[in-house]
């Protein structure tokens, strides 16, 4: 064997180099991808809690109560002997409507959808009424609103006993 060919890799060395290189490359890519995946989740979330205690039923007057809107995204609406927890997400494209006390309606600032006080859509492009959240009494008689459970009018779910409180 000449000096020239000794300097070159033989087949076995070539494959071991390729294997080491390939393993290193793959693990580097996998590590970067997992870091990137982890990066897509926030370290701290400021999302509102999905359930909360909303005081006693006697705290609410007839009409729309906005005290939980900014913290939890819920309107408490008391009307015709029923207290409901209404979602504040527009059913058109998910903006946050405003309660207009003078006009007695919820009005979305994005595309002008309008809802009556009970959450039924009547103007603008909103295709369906606002959603209700599960509302129930705790043993101490306090109201518990659970936003993980949703009741939709067009599916006939507003008759469900968990979708309102009789007051």
């Amino acid at each position: 064997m000449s000096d020239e060919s000794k300097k070159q890799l033989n087949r076995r060395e070539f494959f071991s180099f390729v294997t080491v290189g390939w393993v290193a490359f793959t693990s580097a890519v996998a590590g970067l991808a997992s870091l990137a995946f982890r990066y897509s989740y926030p370290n701290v979330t400021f999302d509102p809690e999905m359930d909360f205690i909303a005081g006693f039923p006697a705290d609410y007057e007839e009409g729309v109560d906005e005290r939980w809107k900014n913290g939890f995204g819920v309107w408490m609406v008391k009307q015709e002997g029923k207290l409901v927890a209404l979602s504040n997400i527009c059913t058109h494209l998910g903006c946050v409507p405003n309660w207009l006390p003078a006009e007695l309606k919820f009005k979305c600032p994005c595309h002008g959808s309008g809802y009556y006080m009970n959450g039924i859509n009547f103007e603008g492009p909103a295709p369906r009424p606002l959603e209700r959240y599960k509302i129930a009494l705790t043993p101490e008689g306090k109201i518990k609103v659970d936003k993980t459970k949703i009741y939709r009018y067009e599916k006939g779910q507003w008759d469900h006993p968990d979708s309102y409180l009789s007051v």
Partner: protein
Amino acid sequence: MKEFINYMADPIRSFPIMTILYILMMKYYRIIGTKKFAIGAVVASLPVVAWFCMDANFRAIILWPDNIPINIIIILIAWLTWYSLYRCAQNDARIEKGECPIEATPENREKVWTWPNLVYTELMCMIGATVFLVVWAIIFKAPLEEPANPTWAPNPAKAPWYFLGLQEMLVYFDPWMAGVVLPGIIVVGLMAIPYIDTNPKGNGYFTIKERPLAMWMFMYGWLVLWIYLIIVGTFLRGPNWTFYGPFEYWDFHKVVSEYNVNLSEFLWIKWLNMPMPGNIVLREILGIILTVAYIVVIPLWSAKTKWGKKIIENTGQIRYYIFIFLLLGMTSLPIKMVLRWLFSLKYIIALPEWELNL
């Protein structure tokens, strides 16, 4: 007078007006595409603009930092539209006389080197654009606002200005349609133009006479369905996305009465005087029939007409059907707008149970 302009600016009236103005512009492009007309129009519009600017409410809207780019694009688009009509009118007059378009004359076909002619110009444009943006950023502040709050939205909540046409479309459509399907069709349709349009006429030169259908269609979609809607969304939509005239104060408590009704409610409750059927397909049957007729029957029927036969002969079946599908997608917007204004029609097919509305 101001009251009248406020009244006429409502999309219910200004949209047909814009359509008519557009038709007049395209029909009489040889008059509009002259230098005399351009000078006359500028001279005539200056006092009108000055008079508009005397109004405090109008000034407040157009001088709002977010809206200044739109003032600039209105001027730019007016200029570019006029300029293309001017070039079209010139070329069409030459073509009629049997001459070649100006772009095809020997002195205009002369070839030049990329460097320095093109690259140098591009460099200068880059520097100019950078300077412009730096100056812009210094003059118009873009302050940080409070941290994002998922339970609160500004009022009116407006998209970036280039999306305001889409946001205006969303007033008439389900988010699936106006947010996903129609923008998708716009993008795919624009990419498909070179494959559908195999007519070599109009390549590299301005002309309306040789390409009437292409010019009329594209310019309508661009000027009326895109630019006009951006202008409406920018200047004429205030709190709660309510319409406000150009001289109107943005009063948060402006009362608008609107009650939108689905086609199925029209059919069963108003016309047949019956309760809504429980079966949702039966409930929406009229809307489904109309939609199928719109996207299946119209293309098949139009292929039989003289107009359709001519296009099929020139381009072929598949190209024709893709073309007519894109055209119907585009015309669905003005149809839906007019139906909303005339009949307060909300959705032709309303299946909120399936998150599907047309």
